[in-house]
């Protein structure tokens, strides 16, 4: 296969599917069905992953798990420092968080700042019993004391590299690649 600009495929469509099934089984193994489970996806690809996990739980256990959508833009710690003002997308947590075990879901775990923002936002919506964090790819370089409870794949990267997660819902293909930066 040709490899322009040092692009390396880490997960294929089949890999992503298997990974999500494995992660879902881990969730169901750890969290008993008597506990109120809820999924919250971080915009944009975290939401796609959350929807897929929701469907897998439905397939395995026949249960409907509530799903929320979180846009963390207004909770970022660099809002006035970054260049272009980021656009704000939908946030929707249309269920009561109290006594729920919330699985927060995102595509890539990097500095941990997004998770920090997401936690603050969730707390403004209510007081969940517990929050756990699921991520498809952990690439390291944390800047805050944050870790994921469920990890699809650990990918050792350098800071110059870019981890690109593509999901059918928004990118017409399922794959995870690492792209070597130009500098």
């Amino acid at each position, binding site marked *: 296969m040709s490899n322009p600009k040092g692009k390396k495929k880490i997960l294929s469509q089949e890999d992503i599917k298997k990974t999500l099934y494995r992660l879902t089984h881990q969730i169901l193994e750890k969290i008993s069905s008597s506990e109120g489970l809820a999924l919250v996806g971080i915009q944009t690809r975290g939401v796609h992953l959350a929807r897929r996990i929701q469907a897998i739980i439905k397939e395995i256990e026949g249960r409907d798990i509530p799903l929320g959508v979180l846009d963390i833009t*207004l909770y970022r710690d660099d*809002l*006035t420092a970054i260049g272009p*003002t980021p656009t704000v997308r939908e946030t929707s947590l249309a269920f009561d968080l109290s006594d729920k075990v919330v699985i927060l879901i995102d595509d890539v775990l990097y500095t941990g700042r997004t998770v920090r923002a997401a936690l603050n936002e969730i707390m403004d*919506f209510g007081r969940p019993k517990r929050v756990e964090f699921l991520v498809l790819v952990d690439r390291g370089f944390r800047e805050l004391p944050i870790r994921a409870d469920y990890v699809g794949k650990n990918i050792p990267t350098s800071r110059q590299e870019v981890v690109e997660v593509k999901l059918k819902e928004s990118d017409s293909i399922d794959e995870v690649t690492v792209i070597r930066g130009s500098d």
Partner: protein
Amino acid sequence: MEEWQKKHILDIKNFSRLELETILSLADSFKEISKREVKKVPALRGKTIVNLFFEHSTRTRTSFELAAKRLSADVVNLTSSTSSLTKGETIVDTIKNLESYHPDIMIMRIGVGVCLESFTKYTQASIVNAGDGCNEHPTQALLDMFTVKKSKGTLENLNVLVVGDIAHSRVARSNIFGFQKFSSKVTVCGPTTLIPYEFEKLGVKVSNDLDREIPSADVIMMLRIQKERQGITFFSTMRDYVERFGLTPVRLKKAKKDCLVMHPGPVNWDIEISSSLKERVHPLILKQAENGLAIRMAVLYLVGTKKRKI
């Protein structure tokens, strides 16, 4: 999203269509925040906003204050009647003094004959126009456009009819500039004495016959008769005005079924609009007020998070 360029929000006239679209789509996201249990996000935490009102206001002042608070900014309210302006301090001196407290945004409403832009040289803060004399009222036009877009699904190729006191209306001017950027046609309708000649140069249709204009309108904006600005008389009697330019059930029957009736508020019932139409038109007018909050959050967010050159 393109980088937001404008430090100040002074007028719709100098906005691009893209900038207007940016604000409208942001406002859509901000609407939801006011429906949360905790109606607050930390986007402007640590920012100081001064609400400086040299003219009376209910909706604009309240919604700007709430918008700032829902974005976690600290807000100080100053009205001319409770400030040292009553002791003779000039507006410029007032701004210079407020500047020593290092505000990030100054929201200002000022009267006729004062140039808002000229104040930008006295402060590092972003200035947001909350209505300046008979010039512009950008956030009102934005919330009107937002309301129309929500109801009609589009802002393009509409016939917008603005009725009443055009001469004194900053709302009319801002809406004309705004709707024209979306290729909508604006007609202004009122007594000849209340439509200055300059309006023809703005590319709008000028009319004195409301009955003739109503059937083709997609949106009717009724403007308030601004008694406080009517130093001299512009029409013979109020009764005569209502007769010719008041929106009555008979007149509204001639309008398209899905025609929107709007009013920037406060409404003088039975002058601009018959009180018997209240049930039909008031819900949308209140919706305008609700949308105003989201629009003002969007505007404050854009200027408040803009990267500053230090």
